Structures are given as C-alpha cells and as structure tokens.
C-alpha cells in the first residue's frame, strides 16, 4: 500500500509536475489575495483567455510561449482600456467582448495551423507532459514574480486599500498597478501549463477567496492563500497520477472543497459562525 502511494515520486515527470504546479499555484494564490479584494476577479479570467492567441502564435512561430503570451496580454489590456474610454459600455461588457474575441482568435489560429501543441493542451493544460524548456520558463516567471511580490506586498496593499492615500505618501500607484497586472498576466500564462486557460481563473481567485473567510489581516491572508494554492496544486498533481484525470480538474476541485469547508466552518466569517451569532443575538439576555 505504502509503496504504491510513493510510486509518483519515482517518476521524473511526476516530480516535475508536482513541484512546478506547487510553485505556480503558490504565486497565483499570492496574486489572488489582491485580486479578490478589488472585485477584479474577472480580470484574471479575461487575461488568461486573452493570452491564448499569443501562446498559439508562439508555438506556431517557434518562439518561447511567454513572449507571445506577453504580447497578447498587453494587446488585451490596451484593447479593454481603449474600448472603455471610447464607448459608454460598462467594464464587464468590455472585458467580456475583448477576452472572448481574443480567445476565439486563439482557437482559430490553433485549428488553422496545427502545431505540436494541441488546442486541448492550451485550454485544459497538460502539466504531466510539460517540456523542459517550458519548465524553465515557468520557473523563471514564478520566481521573479514571487520576488517582486515579496518586496512590494505592502505597497500593493496600501494601493489596493486606499489609493488616494498611497499617492499622497508618494507611492507611484500607477506603476504599482501596472506591476500587478504584468505579474498577473505572466502568472496566468505560467498557470496555463498546469490547469489550462479555462481553469486559470480558479487559481487566481479561489485561494484568496478562501483565505479571506479565515482572517482579518491582509498579511495572514496572503500566507494562508499561498499555502492553499501551493498545497492543492502539489496534491492535485500527485492525485492525478492515480485517477488518471486532467490535473487542472483535480487541483481546482481540491481548491473548491477547501473553499466550501471555509465557507461553512470558518470561525468568524463562516455560515455556522454567522448562525451562532444570530442565535446569540436573538436569545433573551
């Protein structure tokens, strides 16, 4: 029994998958702590889908996928900013239009010029078959993002919490937000490899949302979020060896389970705690 459970650790490709997933999951979870606080969760989804044509194009041209993804991510952001400024549409409509257009373009490109990478790999991810070059790219993206976030997490927190004040003490909030969205695009690209474009949104939303139910301090929220993101990604990749399922599906299902647990049982912000408080308040004193 025990030997059987250790089997995945005997394979290089499994080890690679587990560690890369954990790294990407951790960094995405770091970003999710900020994203859920701003009501910008859909931006993560939008970015993940928008980079698909870039990734497809990069494979077609044989350049590193991060380069292509970066360009289409920038294109998407500029597109959204342009449509919002020059129309009366609301933000969600603009996001919806721009990201679906780019996603469609990506699918189209991948089916017209079939490459070694199938559409399915981009949309659903395939961490178990990740190439060594891609591992290097993902590792570099994650490490740089993690380093920058560790240096700037407090500045980003003030910017997200009270932007006017952040500016009044001399923080360059425009640069900080640009940094955040650059990291977000970079990390969603990295996460494409593990869970695919469709489920990236979970990686940059669910851990932060779960952690938010568990603490009232932003620093702790980040730590909890990272532990959840990295832990579920590692375990998810491990489990996918046994159930032979898509890694992305397993990882995100685990994250959802933990979210539901927090939603119900969180000591202060869970449903049960709320019921208890209501009962206490209703009871005669």
């Amino acid at each position: 029994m025990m030997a059987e459970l250790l089997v995945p650790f005997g394979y290089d490709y499994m080890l690679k998958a587990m560690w890369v997933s954990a790294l990407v999951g951790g960094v995405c979870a770091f970003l999710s702590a900020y994203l859920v606080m701003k009501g910008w969760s859909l931006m993560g989804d939008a970015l993940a889908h928008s980079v698909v044509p870039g990734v497809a194009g990069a494979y077609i041209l044989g350049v590193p996928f991060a380069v292509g993804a970066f360009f289409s991510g920038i294109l998407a952001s500029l597109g959204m900013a342009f449509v919002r400024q020059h129309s009366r549409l609301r933000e969600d409509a603009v996001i919806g239009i721009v990201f679906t257009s780019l996603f469609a373009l990506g699918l189209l490109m991948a089916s017209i010029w079939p490459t070694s990478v199938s559409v399915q790999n981009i949309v659903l991810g395939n961490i178990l078959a990740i190439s060594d070059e891609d591992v290097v790219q993902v590792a570099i993206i994650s490490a740089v993002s993690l380093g920058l976030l560790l240096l700037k997490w407090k500045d980003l927190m003030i910017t997200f919490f009270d932007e006017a004040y952040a500016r009044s003490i001399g923080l360059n909030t425009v640069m900080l937000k640009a940094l955040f969205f650059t990291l977000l695009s970079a990390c969603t690209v990295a996460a494409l490899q593990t869970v695919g474009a469709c489920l990236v949104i979970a990686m940059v939303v669910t851990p932060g949302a779960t952690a938010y139910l568990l603490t009232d301090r932003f620093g702790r929220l980040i730590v909890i979020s990272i532990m959840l993101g990295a832990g579920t990604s590692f375990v998810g990749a491990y489990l996918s060896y046994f159930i032979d399922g898509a890694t992305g599906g397993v990882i995100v299902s685990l994250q959802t389970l933990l979210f539901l647990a927090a939603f119900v049982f969180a000591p202060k912000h869970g449903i049960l705690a709320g019921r208890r408080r209501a009962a206490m308040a209703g009871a005669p004193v």
Partner: protein
Amino acid sequence: MNMIAGPASASAGVIGQAGASISVRGLTVTYNTGLRAVHDASFELDPGTICALVGVNGSGKSTIFKAIMGFVTPAAGEIRLSGRPVAEAVRRNVVAYVPQSEDIDWNFPVLVDDVVMMGRYGHMNFLRIPSRADVYKVHAALERVGMSEYRKRQIGELSGGQKKRVFLARALAQEGSIILLDEPFTGVDVKTETAIISLLRELRSAGHLMLISTHNLGSVPDFCDQVVLLNRTVLAAGPTAEVFTQANLERAFGGVLRQFNLGGAALHDDEDPRGLTVLTDDERPLVIYGDRKGQSAPPAKRPGEPTS
C-alpha cells in the same frame, strides 16, 4: 481589553512640527476631458489655522485637494507647501490626507493597528518594516484619538465616528504638518464631531494647518478661523467673520442652498426687526440671527465645550 482611552495622555511624539503653510497662486487645473475644474484660484494659509473649503459639488474642492497632494498637474499657477514645491513636500510627508468614508473599502482585511501603521509607511525604507519608534507612534496616535482599546478590531466592525478617528490617527502617525480632511463630519454623531473638533483645535495650537472640505455649514463658524469659498475659482478667502457671510454663501451656492427666512414679525410681537435665517446644504445648517445680509454668523456653542 484595556481601558486607557484617555484623550490627552499620550500627546508627546505625535504632534511635533509646526510652521505649516499653504500658498496657492493663480491655480488653474484642466482635466483631459477638457473640463476646467479650477480657474485662477489663489489663497494663502498660515501655520496654526483651521480652514474650511466650502462650495457646491463640482466647485473644485476635490480638485484643490488633488493639486495639493500632487495628483494633478496645474495648467497654470503654483502651489507651495511650507515653502516647498508639492512633489518635494509629498516626499517629506508634509501632507497627511484623511479620506472620505465612502472612499474606503470597510471589508478590507486590515485591523485598526494596520491602518494607523500605514501612516508610518512614508517614513520607512522600501521594505516597510516598522521600527520600534513606528510602533510607539502608532500607539500614541491611537491613544490620542481614544481608540486604543479597538486596536485589534477589523475596521468594518467600528461605528462611523470610530472609523473617522482611526483615519485621523493615521494622519497623526504620519506627522504631517498639513492635514487635509475630506468631509470629516459625514455620518458622524455630534459627540464624535465635538471630539474631532477639539482634537483639531489642539493640533492648531501646535502649529498644524488643517484644510477641511465640508458641507457642514453650521459647524464652520464654530472652529474654522479661515474660510475659502469656491466655485470653480476662489470667490472669497479670509477670516471666517469676514468671508462666511450670508451674501457670500448665496454667491457660492446659488440656488443649491436651502434657505429659510423668518422675519422679525413672524418670530415675535414687537418692533424688533431682527429675523432668523437658516442656510443648509442638507447637513448641519447654518443659522444666522440678524437683519443684514452682510452680517456674519456668531459662533454657536456646543454642549460640553469650553468657550474659547
């Protein structure tokens, strides 16, 4: 819970510098949309002043705030804060900003302590690791506004007045000599309003300069010694007694202000011609007794407050 919420106990270390001044000369701000928000505005404020910035919505109050904090670049004119250009003053943490309550996300996972510590960030190095002095100043600031016992509360769990005091404490911890307050009395009970005003007076005695954007016309004569009346430009600026008159207010507010006039005959059965005028911008109204439009409002007394 510790109950050491004495207002005046820990003042040392929180109030330091004096000598704050604001000089706005010929300020014109035009936004990208082509909107000229403020045109040729000029006023001067000296240390130890509480100044009200009064005008209708869209009269340029927030634009003036933004210009003082360096968020907008003037199309013309110049602002100097304590003799320094805005960018340099901001770098030196001269300006402390107390935002409107509506601009804050009260569900954000930060404790009272965390918010006040943000006031120290401008003084820390780029990693923002608080020193022992920073921690001490945060405690002192919280004690000064009487919020020490709420240190570990999440900010959304506080009442309207407590929320205001926390952000005031952040401004104190920042040790800026110029404090900008954006609608500090909105959603605040009279007791907290009185507490805030007495704190502002203490800060004034220490040489701070406070600029307050407010719709609360009634309290202006109580504690503001200067008034700047705005409507896209400075209509009038100077000592409250000279500037805060019914005639000037009508000029600043046009038809927006609610006005009730009760003539002497309606009030009493004698020859006394004096009447009562109530001016309100839908917050605490300004009440003027007298018969002449140019006459200024006498400061009204609040309960539990010494006459100055």
